[in-house]
C-alpha cells in the first residue's frame, strides 16, 4: 500500500475549515475552563458551605465521569430543558465544563502554594481582601499554575475529536467523511494525526515560552 501524496494534497480544502472548527472549539473551551475553573476554585475555598459544597460536588462529578457521556448528556438534556444550542456551542461548553473541573484543582494548588506569610503581610498592611487576591496572591500563583494549565489546554485540543459524536464537523469527522467518499482512509487519518502532533508541539512550546516569561516578569 502506498501513500498517495496527490490525494492527500487534495484533502487540504476539506480539512482546513474543519481544523478551524477544532481550533475554535479549543479556544472557546479554554476560555470557559480558565474562567469557570477560577470561580470554582474560589467557591471551594468559601467559608459558606452553601457555596463550597456544590462547587466541590460539581468538580467531583465532572472528574469522575467520561467526557463523552457529558457531551451526550448536554446534547440531549439541554434541548429537553428548553435550551437550544448549536452542536458546536454544546461541544465547546462541554469541553469547557469538563476542563474547568481540572483547572479548578490546578488553581487551588497554585493558590495554596503561596505562603501564608504573604497573606499575613498583606493583612498587617491593611490591604483589602480583593486587592490581596488580585495583586499579591494570584500573580504569584499564576506563575506556578501555567505549566499545568497549559497541559490541560493541549489535552483538551486532543480531545476535540469527541465532538464528532454530537455532530460537530471537526478535524476527525471531516477526515472520516472524506474517507467514506473514496474508501481511502490512510491519507486523511495520517494527515489528522500529523496536524494534531504538530499543533500540540507548537502549543506546548508556546506554553514553555510563556512560563519562562512570566517567571521573569514576576520574579517568582
Amino acid at each position: 500500500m502506498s501513500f498517495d501524496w496527490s490525494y492527500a494534497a487534495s484533502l487540504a480544502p476539506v480539512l482546513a475549515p474543519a481544523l478551524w472548527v477544532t481550533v475554535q472549539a479549543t479556544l472557546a473551551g479554554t476560555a470557559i475552563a480558565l474562567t469557570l475553573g477560577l470561580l470554582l476554585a474560589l467557591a471551594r475555598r468559601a467559608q459558606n458551605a452553601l457555596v463550597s459544597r456544590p462547587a466541590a460536588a460539581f468538580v467531583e462529578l465532572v472528574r469522575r465521569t467520561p467526557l463523552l457521556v457529558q457531551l451526550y448528556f448536554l446534547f440531549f438534556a439541554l434541548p429537553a430543558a428548553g435550551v437550544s444550542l448549536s452542536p458546536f456551542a454544546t461541544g465547546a461548553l462541554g469541553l469547557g465544563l469538563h476542563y474547568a473541573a481540572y483547572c479548578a484543582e490546578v488553581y487551588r494548588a497554585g493558590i495554596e502554594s503561596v505562603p501564608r506569610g504573604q497573606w499575613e503581610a498583606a493583612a498587617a498592611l491593611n490591604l483589602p481582601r480583593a486587592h490581596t487576591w488580585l495583586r499579591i496572591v494570584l500573580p504569584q500563583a499564576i506563575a506556578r499554575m501555567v505549566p499545568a494549565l497549559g497541559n490541560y489546554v493541549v489535552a483538551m485540543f486532543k480531545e476535540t475529536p469527541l465532538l464528532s459524536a454530537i455532530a460537530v464537523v471537526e478535524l476527525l469527522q471531516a477526515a472520516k467523511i472524506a474517507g467514506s467518499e473514496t474508501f481511502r482512509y490512510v491519507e486523511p487519518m495520517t494527515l489528522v494525526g500529523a496536524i494534531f502532533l504538530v499543533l500540540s508541539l507548537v502549543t506546548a512550546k508556546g506554553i514553555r515560552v510563556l512560563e519562562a516569561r512570566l517567571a521573569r516578569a514576576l520574579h517568582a
Partner: protein
Amino acid sequence: MSPIVSLRGVRKRYGETEVLRGVDLDVAPGETVSIIGPSGSGKSTLLRIVMALDEPDAGTITIDGEMPWAAGAKGRAASARLRRARERVGMVFQHFNLFPHMTALGNVTEAPVRVLGLERGAAQARAREHLARVGLEDKAGSYPAQLSGGQRQRVAIARALAMQPKVMLFDEITSALDPELVGGLLALLRELAQQRTMTMLIVTHHMKFAEASSDRVLFFDRGMIVEDAPPAAMFGAPRDERVRRFVEAISAVERGG
C-alpha cells in the same frame, strides 16, 4: 497617660495547645518593650494578637482605643473595626514576607497607595525616604530575590514604617539572618527606639539588645508573663528562677561558650 496597647485576660489556643494562658499587659505610648523567653512560650502569638492577625479565644485587646474584635460585630462593621485597629499597628516578620513579584520600591508603595490613598508619585517619594532611613536608597529597583537577607529585612521595616503606625511589632527579625548581618539590624532597631516616635514591641533572643535598648522587658514562659521589669532588674536581679536560668543559658551562647 492611658496605654496604647492593652490586653486583659487574653487566651489563645491552637488545636490542643493553649499558647496564651491569660495575659494582662499595658504598654504606654512611646515605650520600647522587649519580649524574651523560651521558644514556644507564646511570644510570637502575643504579637499576632496585637497585630489582630489572630483573634483571642478569651479576653479583650484594645489598640489606641480601638477593639479589633468587639463582640457582636458582624460583616462590614466588623471588618471596618478590624481595619481601624490594624491601621495603628505595623509588623515586621521573622521571614520578611516581602512580595517577591514587586521591587523594593513597589513593596513600600503598595499599601500607602491602596490603603492610605496617597497619589503614586507622593507615595514613591515617601517610600524612597523610608528606604534611605533603613540604608537602602540605592536598592529601590531591586527585587527581593536580588537582595541579601539583611537587606530584605530592611525593606520589610521600611514597608511597615511607610504606613506610619503608632505601634511597631518586631517578631524575631534577626532569626533568619546570617550572624554577620544581625548587628546592623539591631543597630537600626536601636535607632528607631531612640527616636521615640513609635511604641515598639520586640520579640528577641538578643539579651544584650534587650538590656541596652528597652524601657521594659517581659519574660514569657508557657503562655504567661512570668516577669515584667525594667532591664536592670530583669537582668540584674530577676525574681523568678526561670528568668535567671534562661538568661544565663542564652548569654553563654552569645559569648560563644
